[in-house]
């Protein structure tokens, strides 16, 4: 059981780290604001979600696990809102993009 949980942790955290890496590469390489936002939100949403999922088997107590999930949900909410605001500002500056 504990081997399976450890395996889940390793796979999920490595996958999460991969999404952060891919998001960072996208942020540096993509040509315009909107595609860069797309790369960034993938890192926030999926990357952090997978890291949280990987950490869940190792927290002590249900409350600590719920706190981790709450942090992920709050980041989802704020990154979704922030990316909308950035996208809107970018469109107002350059309506053709």
């Amino acid at each position, binding site marked *: 059981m504990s081997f399976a949980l450890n395996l889940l942790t390793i796979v999920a955290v490595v996958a999460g780290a991969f999404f952060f890496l891919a998001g960072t590469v996208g942020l540096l390489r993509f040509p315009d604001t909107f595609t860069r936002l797309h790369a960034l939100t993938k890192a926030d949403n999926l990357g952090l979600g997978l890291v949280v999922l990987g950490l869940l088997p190792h927290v002590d107590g249900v409350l600590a696990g719920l706190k981790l999930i709450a942090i992920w949900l709050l980041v989802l*909410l704020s990154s979704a*809102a922030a990316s909308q*605001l950035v996208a*809107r500002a970018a469109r107002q500056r350059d309506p053709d993009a």
Partner: protein
Amino acid sequence: MMALLNAGLALLLLALAAWTIAARDAFAAAVGFIAYGLLLTLAWVQLSGIDVALTEAAIGGGLTGALLIGAVARLRSTEAAARAERPGAPSRLLAALVAGVVTVALAICVLTLPDPAPTLAPEVAANIAAAAVGNPITAVLLAFRAMDTLLEAIVLLFALIGVWSLAPDRAWGGRPGPLHRADPNGILAYIARVLPPIGLIVGMYIFWAGADHPGGKFQGATIVAAMWLLVMMAGLADAPPVSRKWLRLGLVAGPLVFIAIGLAGAVSAGAFLAYPEGYAKPLIVAIELALMPTLALILALLLVGAPQRPVPP
């Protein structure tokens, strides 16, 4: 492994600090400063200074960052002109010399600190029972060095008065800051409706947990202030005119309660800000409860700025 991580963190901090100073664009420098604050938070966590880390994230990164971005927005119209001016060689040499001397002096001070560093930590640990709170930081801030905390709150109040005094005569007593209009069905209005209930609970939790765990009124008040600012920026509620009685009462309530309890201590316990035996915990909670709304008001209004819209009589 941990040493590698710490070394990486320290290098990143230094590189980001250098980049922030070298950045020519004011907005880029402000963003660099915010990222620097978040990295510094991680450094404090690595040093087990969770209380300092929370304060750094809330005030150093968040609040100061927002203040700087506001300043950048105000300076935008003059930035190009300011950048076109290039100071002469002597003044630049002098600036480099002064900055270099300050850096060297600071480095010498840090490097000549006695080892082990002089510390009062054992005395705090020995006397913490008298303060009746579990978090030693709170015990220092509100029992052993309560005077510093009182003066800190009063300094913040003076800072706000300083900001307000920049108001033009016709706007005195009016509403501070610009009028924010946002799409009532837009994402900003949405987040300003969804987030404040959560933020208020988190802020109160951090405030309440401060008695026994890292946290406290400052960090909690910053989060509450941020929620209020969000509501104002989304145009859901306007900033109150600075002449409102309830506002001014709220701004002085915290320090007044603090001073009153301090004076009561002078009578009942023999020294200003001393707590009578057995009453330390309720009195500390009372001071923190009174200070928290005052701090939230001051921090939010510091960001909103000087009064600039007169209220129609």
